[in-house]
């Protein structure tokens, strides 16, 4: 075979290949194509075999033409193979379509009790300022609950808090201030003290905003020079932390047996922004907590020299904060624990 004949044969074979590859639409046909045109019994193999009979001068050109053609056919095969694979993958993907709006395979999350959410929010605020969390028993001595926080048995303000009596000299604590005296007693006159004490307290009282059981958080700071100004700063910050940076905070003088001077803090109503609504009883302000400078008598009763240390205390009703923050209408909901109520509170 001379070069011209070869060229002709290649041309014919090319035509056939191009025709046939068009018809290939699956892997079996592609394999047939491969066997017929590239395999051992293919024309191409035959042509390569015929090389030994070619004139020595043409051999190089002959080989070149054949190699080039082999690459041509090979690439037809490879391209087709890729085309088929792509097609197959696409088909597979198309068959794997899901409705992404269907619900997931998952347990629904549970929920935190709203009083926990408020407590933890405040605890994390105060821990950031180096406060420690203190606790004490709920069955408490009258001495810790009353006497050591400057409420002797003949004090008129015992009328303010009607407590549950468990035994002679033993009550259910009526405020978390009871923890104050425990902490001070065990500190043995050392300062500084910086504590918060969240916990349950009990009073003989019951209506839509009062429950015989509720939660309070007490704060106490004792040091050589902690000031009333510190207290006002701290309360302003924590109330804005709880109710939003835009809240205005105001302080009114008040009275508590364990602090003097005493104050109550109000925040501007977040419902009406101070214009007046039913939540704030048309005053534009919501009463939120009580606080003051620790009464020197409390310091003395608990083993401190009131000429050397001073400090402040505050008490916040957790239930009240939660009711305001979440718009809860009745304090009893916290303790009835209806799951339709509970499941609304998720975030910690």
């Amino acid at each position: 075979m001379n070069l011209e004949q070869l060229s002709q044969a290649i041309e014919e074979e090319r035509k056939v290949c191009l025709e046939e590859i068009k018809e290939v639409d699956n892997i079996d046909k592609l394999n047939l194509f491969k066997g017929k045109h590239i395999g051992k019994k293919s024309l191409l193999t035959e042509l390569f075999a015929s090389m030994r009979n070619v004139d020595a001068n043409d051999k190089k050109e002959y080989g070149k033409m054949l190699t080039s053609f082999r690459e041509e056919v090979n690439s037809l095969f490879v391209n087709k193979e890729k085309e088929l694979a792509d097609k197959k993958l696409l088909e597979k993907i198309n068959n794997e379509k899901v409705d992404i709006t269907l619900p997931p395979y998952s347990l629904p999350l549970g929920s935190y009790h709203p009083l926990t959410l408020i407590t933890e929010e405040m605890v994390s605020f105060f821990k950031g300022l180096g406060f420690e969390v203190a606790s004490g028993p709920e069955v408490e001595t009258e001495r810790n609950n009353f006497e050591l926080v400057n409420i002797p048995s003949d004090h008129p303000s015992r009328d303010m808090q009607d407590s549950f009596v468990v035994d002679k000299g033993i009550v259910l604590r009526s405020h978390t201030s009871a923890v104050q005296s425990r902490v001070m007693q065990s500190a043995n006159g050392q300062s500084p003290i910086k504590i918060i004490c969240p916990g349950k307290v009990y009073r003989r009282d019951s209506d839509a905003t009062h429950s015989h059981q509720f939660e309070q958080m007490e704060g106490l700071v004792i040091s050589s020079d902690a000031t009333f100004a510190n207290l006002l700063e701290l309360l302003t910050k924590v109330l804005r932390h709880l109710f939003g940076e835009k809240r205005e905070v105001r302080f009114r003088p008040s009275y508590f047996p364990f602090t003097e001077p005493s104050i109550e803090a109000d925040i501007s109503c977040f419902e009406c922004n101070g214009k007046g609504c039913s939540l704030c009883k048309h005053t534009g302000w919501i009463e939120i907590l009580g606080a003051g400078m620790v009464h020197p008598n409390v310091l003395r009763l608990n083993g401190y020299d009131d000429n050397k240390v001073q400090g402040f205390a505050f008490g916040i009703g957790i239930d009240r904060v939660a009711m305001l923050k979440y718009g809860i209408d009745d304090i009893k909901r916290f303790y009835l624990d209806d799951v339709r109520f509970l499941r609304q509170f998720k975030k910690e």
Partner: protein
Amino acid sequence: MLFSYNLLSEIIDLKNIDVSTLTERLTFSGFEVEDVLKMASGDKLVIGQIIECKKHPDSDHLHLLKVDCGEEGILPIVCGAPNARVGLKVIVALVGCNLPALNIVIKESEIRGYDSKGMCCSLVELGVNKEFLTEKQLNGIEELPEDAPIGERDVLSYLKLDDTILDINVLPNRPDCLSYLGMAREIAGLFNLESPSVPKVLSNDLPSIVAVGSNTAHCVRFDILSIRDAVSVKNTPLKIRNFLEASGVRSISPLVDLGNFTMLLSGQPINVYDADKNPFGKYIVRDDYEGEFIAFDNKKYELKKGDLVVSDGERNLCLAGIMASIDAPVKENTTKVDIEFAIFDHVSIRHTSSRLGLTSFSQQLFSKERNPLLVNESIDILLSLLPYFLESYTITSYSSYDGFKQERVRIPFSLEKLNKRLGSSYTEDEVKKVFSSYRFDYDGHSVLPPIDRVDILEQCDLDEEIFRYYDASKVTPSIANFPISIPSDDSRRENLNIIRSMLVCRGLSECISYTLLSKEEDRSFRVFDNDESYRVLNPMTNIHEYVRSDILSSMYSLIEYNKRNQNNDLALFEISDVDTKKGVKTYLSIGLSDDLKMMDQAKAHSYSFFDIKGHILSILEKLNINPSRYRLVPSSNNSFHPYQSADLYIGKDLVATFGKIHPSISSDNIYLAEINLGYLLDLKGMKTKFVAYSTFPIVKRDLSFKLYNGVTYEAIKKSIMKIKDESIIDVHLFDYFRDKKTNSDYIGITIYLGSDKKTLKDEEINASIEKVILAVKGDLGLVLKGQDDE
């Protein structure tokens, strides 16, 4: 306490201080004004006279009136009041009149075919408190006196009802302000007005005919003023009646009103004795009486030593400061009265009245501390009021027992100390201004407060006066001097919060329930503590009487409560401290009911023992408490299903009980757990230390055994794990099923084999598996499924 603005302005000059200014200043100086009420209100009112009164032809109660309203002319009014009649002078609300008490504005209208141009009013419709009105006033229109001026527009002022009532919250440290005089003095201080003074009226020349005395240190002052030939006025003057009512005190009779009005003004409790009932003319206060006391209303009380009584030497005339005895009520028409001005120890009065459950206006005043020196001005106040209540009288005697040792001490005051404590910068002038406004005698380093201010004892009391006198903004919030400190370890609390969060992530909702339980609740579901719980001696209801020493019964109550409210498929938990007689414990309770609900695509299932077990073991795992440290045994607690419950022990300590509720308690699918979480939190978890793992392949082989005689999974696992063959790494359960045809149980387990030195060969694997089969057969008598003798 309720204060009439008009009465206050009779005591001090409030000309330039309107109600809102007063309210604002009081509220920001420690006297919160809780409410501001109008005594009565209505803006377009006029006095009229009914000149014609016909029955409405189509109604059995309506009248057709013609009312002469002076300049307003004669108005037709349809009126339903039964007491409407010709000649009666009435209050007419004209068209356009706003009546806030009814929340209406009067309109011209047609009532069953007849024009009506106004409304005849009762005092209720003007907003007067019903409690102070008679039955007649409540049931009809107000009947004005015959001389009422027709056409008068300022009706409220004519009726002396143009007053505003301030409800001021007087806090316990200011008993002096529980009176008009005291409150007026406070207001005078706040506004720099001249402080009211009481002119001396009591004559020094009066004889002391009546004998008075006290044989107890709990009464340091006891005065009797005797009035004879007393003739009361017919009615207490309208103005005073309205002042009484504005202050929340009902007008009763001139003599009673005299006492009450004096009390309101002075803050001094007054007791009026009928001198006819005390022929001995003797009043002795004693505290050594024991026995029965019959009150004026015939109720009997048991008195103890320490209770103060006033006696005439033989009989008890009254329980001092609290109530009169049956022997000493004042007759309506008595002409001889002895009036008591006493100071009883406020603590004694408080104790006696709270023990006997008695309370009254005067008792409340007596329960507050009061300087005995104030008795003198109270007597002067009463004397100056007498002419309003008595037409004629003679004062015959004044006797005073005075055992009060006056001790007025100056209180040291340092401006520097004040500013250090408050972080403020008050000046000497500012401090001086406060002290002079409040009548405090200040000499630059000490203060002498006036006699009425029993609350001023040391510098902090003065700090408070200065703080509350000025706006709170005088103290600038600041962080300066706030102590820094490094908090100690709080990992117990942090771990508790981690467990809480984990349970929330596992789908449980947190609860907080009541600490106080009923007796029945307290006795049910005890896991840890079978001691008596603390019991409240003064419960509000027996539903809340016992201090729980376990929280499981609360959890069961919550489940029951929710199920009653159609809330099923519950997954709840509560973490709470409980106060037991053995100390404070921290417990965790879990409750599951009905089905585990997944998001609605995944498969739900009925809760089983293994769901609650999963929660418990995950807590232990989270706290890094290795399974080798605890053991599970069938629970001995009889509130639980005997075959679907477990007790978890660490050493000898019971740490948790969990499982299905006993079918005799509830037939519902309920699982409960009680865990001594505090115990687990206090336990030291394992130290975490990395262990290298094999890099050679692990091989798994499954084996199924037929089960006999209650052989447990744990027993099989133990039997396999104790084989001395290093290539056996672990055993897992892969199946547990019952063949329904043969009623036999089968267990499928996977054996994990491997080596950290090489890849195991088939022969080695088979040899190990042979050992497993032999061990299980040898130890437990189990054979492979299919090789049994069926």
